[in-house]
């Protein structure tokens, strides 16, 4: 009786160890992209950090339900989107625009940085239904089919949204260039 108990306890702690390993791999491999995606989803870095923490905590609790490691990315995105939706049930936050968020490319030249700031402002101004599929495509390199599956949408709808998203970005940039040209000229 005692020896059996010891064995089962040993296997429990081995399981825990395996789970811990899996979790660490998951965090290290995906937290950057997940955080970036969260930032663009909620347009606020602090809130994004909270949501990412909640997401990974929930992921840890139900890690056993993740059978296929390849599905980890979309699994996490699903949890993240659910956490984000939950946030609106609780409380509506005043969001800071993504333009205020400090961004990674500090070392870039001024000119490029200005361009990027402009681009960020444009991307941030897209409505969520356009911004979300676009970020899935850009951050995670998802195909139209994958985005459709993740967002539970028809593929044609997704392609239309992606088209409109880029179209809006392009138009906004062209308009800005025009203005700048006029001012400069």
């Amino acid at each position: 009786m005692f020896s059996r108990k010891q064995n089962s306890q040993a296997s429990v702690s081995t399981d825990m160890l395996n789970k811990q390993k899996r979790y660490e791999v998951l965090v290290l491999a995906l937290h950057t992209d997940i955080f970036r995606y969260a930032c663009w989803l909620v347009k606020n870095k602090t809130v994004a950090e909270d949501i990412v923490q909640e997401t990974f905590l929930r992921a840890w609790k139900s890690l056993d339900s993740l059978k296929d490691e390849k599905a980890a990315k979309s699994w996490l995105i699903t949890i993240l989107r659910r956490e984000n939706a939950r946030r609106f049930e609780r409380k509506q936050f005043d969001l800071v625009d993504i333009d205020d968020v400090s961004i990674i490319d500090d070392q870039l030249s001024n000119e490029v940085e200005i361009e990027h700031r402009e681009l960020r402002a444009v991307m941030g101004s897209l409505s969520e239904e356009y911004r979300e599929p676009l970020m899935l495509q850009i951050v995670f390199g998802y195909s139209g089919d994958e985005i459709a599956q993740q967002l539970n949408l028809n593929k044609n709808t997704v392609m239309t949204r992606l088209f409109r998203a880029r179209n809006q970005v392009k138009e906004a940039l062209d308009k800005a260039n025009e203005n700048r040209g006029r001012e400069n000229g």
Partner: protein
Amino acid sequence: MDELEFRRTLYADPNCSDERILAAIAEDPKKQAFRKELKQLDKDMDLASQVKVPDDLVHKLLLRQTMQSHRASKVRNRIQLAMAASVAFVVGVSFTMWQQHNLLNIADQAIAHVYMEGNYALEAQNNVSLQQVNAKLAQFGGEFTEELGQVYYANFCDFENVRSLHMVMQGENGKVSVFVIPHDDAHNAESTANGRGYQSQALDLKRASIVVVGEEGANIEGMKQQLKSKIHFSA
């Protein structure tokens, strides 16, 4: 494929690998430039959307999970401990009760002894002296300090595997059987009983119990008190 569809498709996915799109691009340098432009836009958006991850985020993510599992295991341990404790408690209580339940009621047992024995001892007519009684009682470390009156019978007997002294004495009304039984853990020393035409009372003393068995209706209380005052145990 017309121009509009081409543009729409590439806008939706600049990296589209549809054969018709690729064929159209191969034919037209303008379309090639268009795709290049869109790919550049994607690259820019990718760069522009980079977000600096807070340095401590990884640690927070790993720490919170560690705390969580630590807390969970602590709660689990507490629950296990509580379960083990209550199981031990229940086992302890029920064992004690079971043991008490199994204590031999010596008053009952004395009646059974007298009844089963029949008249062998009760009809004995020996005249046993105090010295003879005390010689036997000395085995249990006791002696009677005063005369007991008429003692018809005094001998060792087996009282449920305990060697005891069995005496028959003259009581106020009729013969009375008296047992002196050394202490035993399995005995419930303070008890009374009646049945089969007899009644009995047990009395717990320092090193032994005394059980007095008389016929129903006889005054055995008096005999009990008398014995209690006369018997003396060495320390």
